[in-house]
């Protein structure tokens, strides 16, 4: 199932049910994200930025309203369909990265790539090089800085074909030059696949060209 667009109709996290979400351009609105375009969702802490990503990625469903992929309500999708989406159509970089600290950087990436078979070894090494962490490739993730871990997580997220990529604060711990390198890598990859980008940020915006910015 290809995701040509992601539509959100009157979506509101259950925790906001009482007070609503005044001023939000996403919650309780009808919003559509189109494939091939880039979006930035800027937010303040506590406005439900990570919730938005987890709803779209299918591991939380504590909301009212309707989210649909190419017109299909995602609440109706089964486990196997979600697994297929996560391997082939929807890439995700969680804010907390969710790397396995006891595995090395390359093993973390391999864990995803072996599942999708999307990249060969030299392509992966090239990405490490482009992001300036080629010397960390065999280091256990536990010994990497948060910024380095963020880059490993970005590489891992790119080890699959995707129609959309969700980036939850992808560059919060990157300096400007590394932000630039990461943004360039993601944009290139999205463009190559004709995919859409949805990035969130509380301040340190990823340096991609966005087609539309929403305030959460």
């Amino acid at each position: 199932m290809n995701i040509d667009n992601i539509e959100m109709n009157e979506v509101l996290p259950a925790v906001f049910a009482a007070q609503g979400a005044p001023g939000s351009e996403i919650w309780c609105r009808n919003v559509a994200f189109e494939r091939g375009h880039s979006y930035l969702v800027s937010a303040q802490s506590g406005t439900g930025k990570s919730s938005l990503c987890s709803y779209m990625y299918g591991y939380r469903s504590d909301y009212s309203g309707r989210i649909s992929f190419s017109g299909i309500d995602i609440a109706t999708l089964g486990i196997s369909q979600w697994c297929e989406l996560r391997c082939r159509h929807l890439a995700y970089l969680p804010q907390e990265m969710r790397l396995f600290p006891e595995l090395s950087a390359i093993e973390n990436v391999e864990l995803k790539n072996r599942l999708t078979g999307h990249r060969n070894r030299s392509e992966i090494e090239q990405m490490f090089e482009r992001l300036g962490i080629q010397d960390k490739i065999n280091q256990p993730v536990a010994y990497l800085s948060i910024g380095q871990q963020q880059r490993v997580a970005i590489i891992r997220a790119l080890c699959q074909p995707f129609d959309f990529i969700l980036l939850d604060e992808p560059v919060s711990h990157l300096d400007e030059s590394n932000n630039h390198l990461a943004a360039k890598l993601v944009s290139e990859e999205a463009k190559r696949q004709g995919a859409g980008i949805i990035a969130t940020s509380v301040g340190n915006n990823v340096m991609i060209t966005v087609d539309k910015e929403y305030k959460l």
Partner: protein
Amino acid sequence: MSKTHSPNNLLWRLLRKHVSAGQLLGFSVASLIGLVIVLLALQFYSDVKPMLSSDDSFMRRDYIILTKTVSGFGALLGSNADFSDDELDDLSKQPWVRKVGQFTTPQYRIYGSLTFGNRALRTYLFYESVPDEFIDELPDRWGFDPAEGKVPVIVSRDYLSLYNFGFAATRNMPQVSEGMIGMIPVQLTLSGNGRSETVEGRIVGFSNRLNTIIVPEQFMQWSNERFGSDEKRQPSRLIVEVSSPGDKAISEYTKAHGYEIAGDKADSGKASYMLRILTGIIATIGGIISLLAFFVLILSISLLMQRNSRKLQDLLMLGYTPAQVSAPYVKMIVATNAVILILGCAATLICRSLYMPTLLSLGSTGGGLLMPIATAVAIMAAITTGSIFSIRRRVSSLWKA
């Protein structure tokens, strides 16, 4: 450059953390003990079973001999120890009764003398008759013709042993074999009804079942007509073919009616019954141990999954299916249980080889291995399936945060 890893290897490296060798070992040992107990009980039963069902075995007892209980005073007061027609009728209607045979007793006196060499044994004798179908080993020359006057006799095999190993040994008499004794004539002097006659008896067979001296029914009829009074006598001893020896109904019935089952052989039917119960109890204990082991495993799995829940969730986030994520644990359980199954079967076979010589010498032909092994496979398959189900269920419960 780094060595490459298959995703399965990587998964196992991630998920083996918190796998408790102690818990796994605890389960394995408990499960192995339970399995071996169940298996051994079933194997032993299946090895002993041929002894229970063969016709000539000591365990099986198709016939019981019934008498009325004779109390000291009852006998003096002349209470009747004979079975009435009503009582016989009621007995033959019992569901556990196949056939009832009556012992007929002589109504005259018998004086017997047995001569071999220059020595002789002389004594008052007693014999009985039963219908031919109740005699276990019917000899060729069985029956009686008044014109010939020769009487075939069957005696209990116990009597021969008693003579050979008791009497002959202490009195310096020759020991005799079964074949030899048939050649020795026994003079039977019958007297009653104002007459006295001598007929020639010959021991033609031995019985394991009938603990008495038996003559053919035709002879008994003839001699009673000739030497006895005319009145019809009711039988005081009965031989009963029963459908299931050791049936509780038999002892209940005989107790209620004041009958006695003669001979300790009546108890042997109970031996098979007891064996079955004992096997059942032991197998149940083994089953309970296996069940407890299974719960240890389930608990251990649930603890393991709980400790690794974050990792399992992260793997699901990457797009791994619950089946893929469960696979390392499923493999671990299957491998462990396969080892337990093999060890359990091996241990059972080793134990069997220890007791089998004894059983063979007792006349068992040995039972099949199929049923116990099939049971073992079924038990371990059930434990494995249950565990896999538990693993899958727990992984699926991690699907949503």
